[in-house]
């Protein structure tokens, strides 16, 4: 039990941050519930119970939107037709689909942060990786699907890795700050994609919009479950495997050891004979490669075709996510599932209660804020600060700034 306790300890603050964010979120629902507020003067009891009801309905809708409707699950158990089954598991699979790109992007950010470099360019690397995969897929579109899948994925990884290598190399050789170069390279990446999608070779026939030919016509990562309208594909499993791989790499290999050493204390790493520049380049390249893999999985598995909005800010959400997860791969998976659930569950909430999706981004922002200010959580929940993870200055020193 103690072992389990210790393993879960780093999750304590993020967990409480999530709880607190939802509580604060419910206040926001309360004060924007104008229907019930209007009744406050004439029927205070009704207004309050009504408002509390709205909160309950909203969060319940979010929950079943993200995980599944018990009634539908029961129906599917009674009558296991593919249709009923699909409708029962659709919410949870959509959550996993939404989490997939976040896991890749989160891992990409975490590996760079662990090495002491701040890769803000995951967004660009993700988009460019998806673009690389698209170009390869369209080039090979008459080949067997397995070959297309393989080559496009590799192409996506390499493009992303190259886009990470450039700022890494610049930093190691010239000292150019990676925050500046990666942000700038993001813009370059978006423009490359826009430009590429104008070409007849890539652009969808009969449109002037910058969207590619429909890839799903000739290549598709196979779905895990063969049920109607279930989008969950093997990319999610690849994401989980990558989380395990990143964890193994960081903590069980000599290269990972070098990256972490350089990330915590570049001087000491140099004194111990490690190559500081090499560590920076490797970290950025791997980070870019993971982002590129994420982009490939998205374009080959989730969305039908490449467009400039392939990533709805995954690379930026991933920075917050890595912070929430303390750069731990297992934490990244957990945090991605949470964010994914918020995104999918929010849709149903909006339909059922009329509360706008923005509430989710509000809650998401609060979670990050509470994690970034652990002192606030400690005060709220009256922790003994010396017993808290991270209370020891030495353990937090090398973390994300």
């Amino acid at each position, binding site marked *: 039990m103690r072992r389990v306790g210790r393993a879960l300890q780093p999750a304590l603050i993020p967990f409480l941050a999530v709880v607190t964010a939802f509580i604060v979120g419910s206040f926001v629902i309360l004060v924007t519930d104008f229907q019930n507020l209007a009744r406050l003067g004439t029927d205070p009891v009704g207004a309050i119970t009504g408002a509390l009801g709205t909160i309950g309905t909203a969060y319940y809708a979010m929950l079943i939107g993200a995980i599944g409707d018990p009634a539908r699950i029961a129906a599917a158990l009674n009558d296991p037709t593919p249709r009923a089954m699909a409708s029962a598991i659709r919410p949870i699979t959509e959550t996993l689909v939404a989490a997939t790109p976040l896991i890749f992007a989160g891992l990409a950010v975490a590996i760079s942060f662990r090495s002491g470099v701040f890769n803000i360019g995951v967004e660009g690397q993700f988009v460019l990786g998806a673009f690389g995969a698209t170009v390869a897929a369209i080039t090979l579109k008459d080949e067997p699907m397995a070959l297309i899948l393989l080559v496009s994925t590799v192409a996506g990884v390499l493009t992303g890795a190259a886009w990470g290598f450039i700022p890494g190399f610049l930093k190691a050789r010239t000292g150019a700050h990676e925050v500046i170069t990666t942000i700038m390279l993001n813009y370059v990446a978006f423009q490359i994609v826009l430009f590429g999608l104008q070409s007849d070779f890539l652009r969808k026939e009969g449109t002037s919009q910058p969207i590619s030919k429909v890839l799903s016509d000739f290549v598709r990562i196979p779905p895990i479950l063969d049920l109607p309208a279930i989008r969950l594909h093997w990319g999610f499993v690849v994401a989980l495997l990558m989380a395990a791989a990143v964890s193994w790499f960081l903590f069980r290999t000599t290269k990972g050891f070098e990256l972490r*050493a350089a990330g915590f204390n570049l001087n000491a790493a140099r004194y111990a004979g490690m190559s500081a520049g090499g560590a920076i380049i490797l970290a950025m390249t791997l980070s870019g490669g993971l982002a590129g893999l994420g982009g490939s999985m998205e374009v080959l598995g989730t969305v039908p075709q490449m467009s400039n909005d392939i990533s709805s800010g995954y690379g930026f959400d991933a920075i917050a996510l890595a912070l929430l997860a303390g750069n731990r791969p297992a934490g990244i998976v957990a945090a991605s599932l949470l964010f994914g659930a918020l995104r999918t569950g929010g849709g149903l909430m909006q339909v059922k209660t009329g509360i706008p999706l923005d509430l989710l981004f509000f809650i998401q922002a609060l979670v990050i804020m509470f994690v970034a200010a652990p002192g606030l959580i400690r005060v709220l929940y009256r922790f003994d600060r010396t*017993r808290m993870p991270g209370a020891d200055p030495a353990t937090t020193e090398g973390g994300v700034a």
Partner: protein
Amino acid sequence: MRLELKEITKRFPGVLANDRISIAADRGEVLGLLGENGAGKSTLMNILSGLYRPDSGEILIDGTPRSFTDPRQAIEAGIGMVHQHFQLVPVFDVVEAVSLGAESTTGPVATFDRKTARARVAELSEQYNLNVNPDAKIEDLPVGVRQRVEILKALYRKSDILVLDEPSAVLTPFETEELFGIIRGLAEAGTTVIFITHKLNEVLEVADRIAVLRRGRLAGTVEPRDATREILANLMVGRDVELKVVKGPASPGDVVLSVKDLHVRDDREHLAVRGVSLDVRAGEIVVLAGVQGNGQTELVEAIVGLRPVDSGTTVIDGHDTTSWSPRRVSDVGVAHVPEDRMSDGLIGAMTVSENLILDTYHREPYSTHGSLNAKAIAERATTAVQDYDVRTPSIDTIVGSLSGGNQQKVVVAREFSRPVKLVIASQPTRGLDVGSIEYIHRRIVEQRDAGAAVLIVSTELDEVLAVGDRVAVMLGGRIAGLVEGADATYEELGMLMGGSE
């Protein structure tokens, strides 16, 4: 009594930092507070300065119990702290830095009254012989003078209980002497001075009374005339400590390190090492003495491959290692204990076992084909922790949470447990307590006796005289003199370091 601390107790989770400590100091008295790192000196002073509140016990000032809830109240009660790490704004001049937070103002919009402030700073500097130019910029001042600015700051706030936390740690022998003069002057003028240190000579020289702390308790209070270094060390550590380095005569063998006409530039591209030639033989300890900043750091960095060489050569064990990478140099059999263990020697956020393989992680048995071998690493750490007496809760403890002495033991354990032909140690005992100093010195002598060539950089004359078989004094990037250890005297070395024959 001007100041009394009675039965002060302060508990942190798992540690009793102060256990019923009572000390007192009168007007004009210098109280030496002696103790090893972690003995509770800092906690006690943080209580006095209002940063912590004691769990029990009381602070009496002129016989009246006072309780401070924040540092401001302590300052108002006349308590002034001079911290080990100075709290000065580098771009300010002395007047601004001293009056910051206690500015005298004039006029309806309270503009800073520089004239009055400057006059007071000048007057205080004059009165206590501090010799500080009120108009100098902080960043242009040497460390010793900055410390005097800190003292000025306390005096400016009318403090007459002055707490100096390890004030000599950053000073040269000469500056330390100057500081002692200032302390005596302050005491004569009626100021109560509390002088925190772990250096035995210093308390004996400057204190009127010495309170010794050990593991959170008051181990004893003694008068300097009744005390010797041995008595104090015993009180501090709780056992008899060998203060002299025990070593037999050196039996020098072949030349292991040979530096010829080396020129090296510092970070600002100035020549820091200007033509140094030096041989270190197997089985001897050569100490590179000198005041900090005379090229020792750059010389060592050049030898171990961390800094490019301008001209000249370094030869280690027959290999021309000039401009080799640090790893190649280390692979020849060079152990390097860097000057600043937290910034260069260790990775504070990593564990003890990880720090112990920082230079060997890429070799068998710690890794095979690029994958780390957790079992071998743990075994290695367990043995090293035992062999080098590292006091750590476990091998998975974060190294940054250990005491300075134990951190240094981790560095030494790592560097000395490879096959070593040449040991280079910069300030190997800086900031360590008596027990750890004894230990580190013994290990270094062991390396010599096992046939390694040893080069030590030290600014502390006591250490230079204690361990050196030969002493080379560096001044202005050159070797100002080379003295046989047995013939060297304090005075001779002091003069060579200061640049006069």
